[in-house]
Structure formats: structure tokens, C-alpha cells
């Protein structure tokens, strides 16, 4: 009975895990296939080349010529088409520009978010001033406002500044401390004993130095979480670039991929999947190197909520 139960648990978990992975494997697999193998029925999972054996030598043949040769002479060999990636980058035309824009935005927003929200979180947690907690409630309340409500006025504001069609609207905001990150960091700052700051104050340490040299180094894990989430957010963001960017020179990878799909979608699935893999892969690799931070971050958001 217990054995059966354990078997069932594993069976369900493995089945679920496979379901999670299949779309991603299918993406990579399609990205490595020649076009005729993308549209075969039943589907081909492993990209291959066909050869015919003649006089002990293998000669490659085309799919269309398959029935010209005896079936027992046909040899199938695993052959991923790595050149699809090169061709997809080529077909996207400005892939490297997209990548550059995306990385610039990631860098700026990560710096902006970490700097501004750690400052604000410090002010909300480690300095005692009148009205602080009321002000913090206001800060929390801003999280209630859905983006569509402020979308149009913010767009108009950037338009008035002449920033539509530049990257500025996508990073300037991150230098002004979003409520969620302030909240996350404040939770962390509050766990550090007050005596630490008091001792430094008695020694004549300025408040900024306490922040910079004592508190921040102690909060590296939390800062990592904020930085990582911001990086992810910027890399993945679709709506922001869609609204603010007008020139293809300024496009991010997300927007560039969508543009590519709208131009080449429906037929060149192998290139589209290769391009999608290129957009998704950096995030997946990043995840594997920073798994602990990720999981901690996600758990933190849930539990403290």
C-alpha cells in the first residue's frame, strides 16, 4: 500500500515534469530541424539526415527521393542543424541591435532599481521620523493601482518630454523606487538589529555611511533578489517596449522576436523556434546559476505578502 502510494506520487510528479518540459524541448528540437522535418506527420523529435548505403559508402539523399531506394539501404542519422541559429539571427536582421538594446536596458534598470529602492527602503525602516509609517502605507497603496490606469497619462508625459521612440521611458522610471522592491528590501532591513546603527551613530558615523558600509553589505542576498527580478522583468517585458518604441533600431529582443514572427510566422517555424530559443536561453541559463536566489526570492514574495 505504501509502496503503491509512493509509486503514484512519483508517477504524477514525473508526468507533470514532462508536461512542463515538452514545450521547451519541442522549441529546441524544432529550432534544430530543416524546414521539411518541421511539418512531418507524425512529428519528428530528433532532427536527422538520410543516407543511402551503396558499396559500403553512405551518400546523403533528399527526403523527396526516399522511395527511390530500397528501404533496408536507408540510414537515418541524428543531425542537428546548428546553422538554423545563424540563419535565424540573419533573418531577424537586427538581432545584435536588439540584444544590445535589451542589455543596455537591463543594466540601467538593475542599477536604478537597486540604488533607488535600497535608499527608499532604508528611509522607511532604519531612520525614525514622524509620519514614516503613514507614508509607507501610501507607498504600499500605490501597488493597488493597475498599470492600465496610469498607462495613458505616463505615455502622454513621455510624449511631452519628447521621449517616445527612445529607450528613456523604459529605464528612467526604475531610478524612482517601485513600491514592491521597497517593500521587499524594507522587510529585510528590519531584521538587522537596531543596536548596530546606534553604535555607529555614537561613533559619529553619518547616516549615509551606515547605509553604505554597514546595512548594504549585510543585505546582499536581498539586493541580489531585487537585481535578478529586475533583470528578468526588463528582459521579458513586452508591453513597455510595445508602447514606447517606434524605431526598429531601438527594439528589444522581445519586440524584435514578435516583429520577426509577424513577418515570417506561419511557415519558417524552424527559424522562429531557433530565435525563440535564443531569447529564452539566457534567462534559463541565468536561472541555473542563481537558482537559490531565485527560489528564495519567490518564496519571500509569497510569504511576506
Amino acid at each position, binding site marked *: 500500500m505504501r509502496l503503491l502510494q509512493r509509486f503514484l506520487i512519483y508517477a504524477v510528479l514525473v508526468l507533470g515534469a514532462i508536461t512542463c518540459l515538452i514545450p521547451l524541448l519541442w522549441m529546441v528540437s524544432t529550432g534544430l530541424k530543416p524546414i521539411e522535418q518541421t511539418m512531418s506527420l507524425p512529428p519528428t523529435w530528433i532532427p536527422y539526415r538520410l543516407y543511402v548505403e551503396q558499396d559500403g559508402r553512405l551518400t546523403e539523399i533528399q527526403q523527396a527521393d526516399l522511395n527511390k531506394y530500397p528501404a533496408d539501404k536507408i540510414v537515418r542519422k541524428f543531425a542537428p542543424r546548428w546553422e538554423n541559429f545563424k540563419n535565424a539571427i540573419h533573418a531577424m536582421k537586427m538581432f545584435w541591435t536588439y540584444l544590445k538594446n535589451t542589455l543596455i536596458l537591463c543594466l540601467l534598470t538593475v542599477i536604478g532599481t537597486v540604488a533607488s529602492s535600497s535608499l527608499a527602503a532604508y528611509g522607511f525602516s532604519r531612520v525614525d521620523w514622524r509620519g514614516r509609517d503613514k507614508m509607507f502605507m501610501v507607498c504600499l497603496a500605490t501597488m493597488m493601482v493597475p498599470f492600465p490606469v496610469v498607462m495613458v497619462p505616463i505615455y502622454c508625459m513621455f510624449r511631452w518630454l519628447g521621449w517616445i521612440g527612445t529607450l528613456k521611458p523604459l529605464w528612467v522610471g526604475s531610478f524612482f*523606487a517601485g513600491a514592491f522592491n521597497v517593500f521587499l528590501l524594507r522587510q529585510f532591513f528590519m531584521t538587522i538589529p537596531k543596536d548596530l546603527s546606534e553604535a555607529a551613530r555614537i561613533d559619529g558615523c553619518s547616516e549615509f555611511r551606515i547605509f553604505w558600509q554597514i546595512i548594504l553589505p549585510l543585505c546582499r542576498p536581498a539586493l541580489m533578489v531585487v537585481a535578478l527580478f529586475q533583470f528578468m522583468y526588463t528582459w521579458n517585458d513586452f508591453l513597455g517596449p510595445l508602447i514606447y518604441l517606434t524605431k526598429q533600431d531601438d527594439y528589444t529582443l522581445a519586440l524584435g522576436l514578435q516583429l520577426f514572427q509577424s513577418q515570417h510566422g506561419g511557415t519558417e517555424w524552424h527559424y522562429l523556434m531557433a530565435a*525563440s530559443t535564443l531569447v529564452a536561453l539566457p534567462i534559463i541559463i541565468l536561472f541555473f546559476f542563481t537558482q537559490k536566489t531565485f527560489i528564495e526570492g519567490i518564496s519571500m514574495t509569497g510569504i511576506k505578502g
Partner: protein
Amino acid sequence: MTRAEKRNLWIGLAFISPWIVGFLAFTLFPVCASVYFSFCDYDVLSRPVWVGTLNYSDMVTDSVFWKSLYNTLYYAFFSLPLCLVIALLVAVLLNQQVKGRSAFRATYFLPSLVPVVASSMVWLWILNGNFGILNSALEWFHVKGPQWLADEKWTKPSLILMAIWGSGNTVVIYLAALQDVPRSLYESAEIDGGNAWVKFRHITVPMISPVIYFNLIMGIIGSLQVFAQAYIMLGGGGPNRSALFYTVYLYQNAFDYHQMGYACAMAWMLFLIILFLTWIATRSTRRLIYYGGE
């Protein structure tokens, strides 16, 4: 106020000054402007013209608005409970003494990491009616799969399916909460002869109820604002606007039709709907949530 208090006030304000500027520029001003625009006819190019409640009364007679609202509620009503229940089931199973738990957790989490544009492309391909693997898999069971995204009956279920696939971060949140439930509670239940269901129903669920509530509220807010995947995969709303979601229609009004006033009015209506639904969710679950120590 003493001198020290005054000094602290200035120091505190200096530290939070980035937030204050952000609050004024990206929340307070836009919120006020948005209220004003919602009573105006405004196309960005010319000055807003006050039209009173016209935008709001237009909404009542706009059949596309109702369709988008229906689509969104349909999507939220099915995707949210399914995601919450399936994620909880997976998390509970992972919380048993299983080998390779962190590998499983990473695997379940993976789909939610994939950039939404990339996952939309993958699902476009999976849901392809002729060559998609979903229909090939159904063929195994001798089921003729529909033309998912080209069939108005199946567009919303397609997106719901995709939402379930991407709900791995909920699993991680649940699992973190489950790991905080004291083992001793389960042990005492075992002594009293409680079976798995009893333990789940009377220990697990109450103990993690604040997290379930958190996921529920976040889910309501998120699923009512579903945008990117629908916009990317179905452009203007798919066949017969069957997947024209609220925010997609709002976006179209703002940036395709240049009816900024109408878009703002729609945004406020969305805000009210979200408030109303969260209020209902809070009211109906209030007595079921257990906060330790209270």
C-alpha cells in the same frame, strides 16, 4: 519637534526622496490625469475636450467592450482556480519525502521563467492545427484535435492551457509555505489515525491559508490584466474577437484608435472590477484564513 527629531525627519525624507519623486511623477499625477482624461475626448494630438460621462455611457452600449469583459472573466474564472489547485497539488506532492525535490521544483518553475514572447511563439507552434504536437498527441488517443487558435470556441481554452503550464512560480510559493508547517502537527494527526485527506484538509490547508489567499488575490489581479500572450498570439483578438481581452481592447483604444479618454475610462472600470472581485474574495475567505498566533 526637537532638533534631533527635525534632523531625523530630513534624513528620512532625503533617503526616500527617489520614491517621493517617483510617486508624484508615476502615480499621483498619472492617477489624477487619468481621472480627468476619462471624462474627456482626447486623441493625444489635440487638447482634451471635456465630455462629461460620455465615455462611461459609451461603454454601456459598446458591444465589443462587453465581449472583452466576458472573455476576460471567462479566462480568469477557469484559469485561476485550475492554476491554484494544480499548483497546490504539485506542491503537496513535492512536500512528501521525494528524492530529487529541488530538480522537480526547478523543472516546474522553468516555464514561468521563459519570456512571454518566446513562450507565445512556442505555443503558437504547439497549438498549430495541422502540424502542432498537441493535435498529434491527441491523435494517439484517436481524438481529432480542433484548430485551437483558429477556432473561436478554442481560443480561450488554449490560453488557459498555457496559463496552467506557466504557473510554476505558484508551486514554489506554496512549497515554501508547506515547508514551514510544523511536522509535529502531522505527527499528532497520525497518532489520532488521520489519513492523508484528513491531514490535508485539517492541517495543510488551514496552515497555508494565508498563502492561498495571497495567490488568489495576486491571481485575480494578474489574470484580469492578461495581455501579452493574447496580443502576440491572436493579434486583434482572434477569430470573431473570441480572445479579445479587456486590456487588449484597452490598448487598442489607446494606441490604435487614439481614444485615450475612452481607454482611461475603461482602465478605471477595470480598477473597480478588480477592487470588487478582491473584496468578494476577501469577504468570502476571511473566516477560513488562519493567521498563526491570532
